[in-house]
């Protein structure tokens, strides 16, 4: 049976042959989209986190057939540049297996809260396990990303004003 959805902004069709096929398995095994990682297939680790119609979910627990007409965003399409940069700059990536899921969860958090405090960050990332970093550097990275995104937002209006004025000047 064919399931049509949007993945990272593009139309996608998956021909699913059993009703219980998970979105994770469709992304990786059927569509060759390997950004989303598979570690536990039981909702415990968060490495398979994607945005489904904007909400972070474990793609291993979503049946692909439930996604007909829905919008899926993976680490490829969900994560603003400053979040990725901050993870690298802060040493929040070691083996990297948890990283795609964490990036999606952080992107969602920062879209809702511009400058989250530590307890809010810990709560938002409670469903993403990392066995390498000890989490401290991940939390540093969230703060760094929040700061970078706030700076960007500050500069953006200034840039657009500048652009406007050059247009007006003949």
């Amino acid at each position, binding site marked *: *049976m064919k399931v049509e959805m949007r993945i990272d902004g593009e139309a996608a069709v998956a021909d*699913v042959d059993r009703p*219980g096929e998970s979105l994770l398995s469709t992304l990786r095994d059927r569509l060759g989209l390997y950004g989303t990682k598979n570690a536990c*297939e*039981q*909702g*415990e680790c968060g490495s398979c986190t994607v945005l489904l119609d904007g909400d972070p979910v474990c793609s*291993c627990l979503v049946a692909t*057939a439930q996604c007909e007409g829905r919008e899926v965003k993976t680490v490829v399409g969900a994560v603003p540049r400053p979040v990725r940069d901050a993870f690298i700059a802060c040493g929040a990536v070691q083996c990297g297996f948890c990283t795609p899921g964490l990036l999606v969860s952080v992107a969602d958090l920062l879209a809702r809260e511009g400058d989250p405090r530590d307890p809010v960050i810990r709560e938002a990332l409670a469903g993403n396990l990392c066995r390498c970093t000890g989490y401290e550097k991940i939390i540093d990275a969230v703060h760094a990303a929040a700061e970078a995104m706030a700076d960007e937002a500050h500069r953006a209006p200034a840039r657009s004003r500048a652009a406007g004025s050059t247009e007006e000047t003949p």
Partner: protein
Amino acid sequence: MTAPAAAPPFHRPGDLGEALRLLAAHPEAVPVAGGTDLMVAVNYRLTRPAAMLDLTRIGELRAWSDAGDAIRIGSGVPYTRIVAELATVLPGLAAAARTVGSPQIRNRGTLGGNLATASPAGDGHPPLLATGADIEIASTRGTRTVPVAAFFTGPKRSVLQPGELITSVIVPKAAGPQQFLKVGTRNAMVIAVCSLAVALDLETRRLGTGIGSAGPTPLTAPEADLIELPWTRPGLFNDALAEEFGRRVAAAARPIDDVRGTAAYRRHALAVCAARALRRVWTAAHGTESTR
């Protein structure tokens, strides 16, 4: 067109009537809401549904409404929305919903799935028991309402029959302070070692209790609920009273030893939680008087 044998293995009803008709016509179809219980079993090959029936497109199941003295919560409203939208009117249930899994699990998991799974450890159950909620169940044969205390029949068993769907949970609005306490090894992502909900009703002067993960089903504690509270002189509330309540709650539990904890530990923890919960609701209702 094609022969009836080619019926799609995945049904996506858009409304409740269609869902019930499909379920009656395809009894092999397993309903799926958030998938946070079912898909784990599917991924681990513990079950291999020949067909599934998606409940996430049914608007009636994904909405809640104000029914006067109660809130009628569609069985498919995810925990995240219960926390965000119902914390003021249903504080006990919202507190329990907040402890479920992780943000990813709360974004998908539903009360309907929690009830249908009927795990003794389900976090939704104690607050529903403490407040005396009703479960609304529908099939093509009609609709019935079951008090939550009569819903569970054994470990992972309930009164739900083939062809039936849980449509909503009717939870009385809080008429006083409520508490939910859950014992586990960390704050996030734990199945309760034991859990406890208490609801104090200031209008009817009644106490309600729900116990989780300490028996073959979630339990009530009728003897504990009947403890005499100093309603006319709230300041007379004291630790001895709170501890007696704790003892009665522990006595109502029917715990076993398992990987998460021993029966003795569960009873002990429940007694501590119950005394604490009662102190908290009483103090919240009557201010600092109770600390005298």
